């Protein structure tokens, strides 16, 4: 997995209380018990940690972690 993925995983475990073994590219935010408010928080945290901004519209489209990491990488995120 990519460095961005590892960073996202760390973020989810440290800040969002997700269990490490639940983190998987196919996992959805719903699978991880993260609601729309968490997603806003996640976008803020990702911006701080990775330096790229996910808009509200983009966040609404995101379902899986794999998609999320792909979007972050497309936007130029580097860990």
């Amino acid at each position, binding site marked *: 997995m990519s460095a961005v993925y590892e960073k996202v995983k760390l973020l989810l475990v440290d800040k969002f*209380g997700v269990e490490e073994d639940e983190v998987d590219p196919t996992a959805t935010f719903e699978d991880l018990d993260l609601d729309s408010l968490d997603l806003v*928080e996640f976008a803020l945290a990702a911006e701080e940690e990775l330096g790229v901004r996910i808009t509200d519209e983009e966040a609404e489209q995101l379902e899986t972690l794999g998609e999320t990491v792909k979007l972050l990488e497309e936007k130029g995120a580097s860990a």
Partner: protein
Amino acid sequence: VSTAIAVTGLGLATPAGLGTEASWNGVLSGVSASARDPILEGLEVDFSCRVPGFDATDLLGRKPARRWDRFVQLAVWAARQAVADANLDTETWDGPRVGVVLGCGMGGAATWEEQHTRMLEKGPSKVSAMLIPMLVPNMVAGQLAMDLGATGPNLVTATACASGATAIGVARDLLRSGACDIVLTGGSEAGLTRLCITGFSQMGALSTRRDDPATASRPFDTDRDGFVAAEAAGVVVLEREDDARARGAHPRALVAGYGASADGYHITAPDPDGSGAERAILAALADAGVGPGDVDHVNAHGTSTPLNDVAEAKTLRRVLTGDYSVTSTKGVTGHALGSAGAIEAGFVSMTIKNGLVPPTANLENPDPEIDLDIVVDKPREQRVEVALSNSFGFGGQNAVLLFTSA
């Protein structure tokens, strides 16, 4: 209708200790929890009473640690203790018949301040989406509904430092009316922030005994100079006594009376003639059907402020006619604001159950204007049948609970 309401469970997270037994042993010890507080460093008042060993991540998990303000964390933890103590099973209880009424004075003060600072420093786009759900005071009751499946009537009472007692009174009424079969009630407060403490300090409400915080909370003492702010949560489980006994529960005490009034006098100072407090006490007595000579113990509001303690003492002397012991557990716990009445209701239940009155910490030189039989130095063994718990809030709101032995 005089349906007896029983206290069947108790959960406490107070500066005197984490858990009911630890809190009870703490107030019995008479050792004040007031200590230097690193968060308040550099302020005129740099000490407070915090709940020892309350690590939200360890006790509740990482998600609640992040998504709940501390006043909600303390309350959920205390509520789980109370439900377990009552021997109730949240999986099988009839959720819509279980109400939640909690008192809270401030709400998520720490969240508010943190996010306001963030907005000023980093801009509006960096403000947390959790700001509002974390700071609204009613969330503490809402979260209990989610956590325990208690989906009956659900609300938070705000009568400042009387909030916890008001909540228990309202909860009692929900059981008497038949609206609920079980009510989780009490209060929670976690307002030990730099801004809140500064606000209380600017009012002159707080003790400024910086050189010796452990002796700063000294209810009824000549040298008292203000209260010491505390955080705490106290949750009691109330049921109709008949229901409780039918399921084999063992009530610690009965909530036999509740009286409420407003001074209509001043935003923060108690009415020196105590007429508002007197009406609340008389209403609680009348509600319970006991006379002013029947009370044998009072857990006083006893904040350690110059004005409260003397006004309260004079009111008690005037209204109650029998022999009664008085204590203020705030000498140990400090003043937990919106949860004070809740944790003190817990202490009164323990006093009735165990026949022990905790001492008032730091009472070394009794104020000559205060003529009461105040318990000092060590716990007093006393069989208590009828006890009052006084709570008076800024805004002139008074709430008095009357407990009897079960």
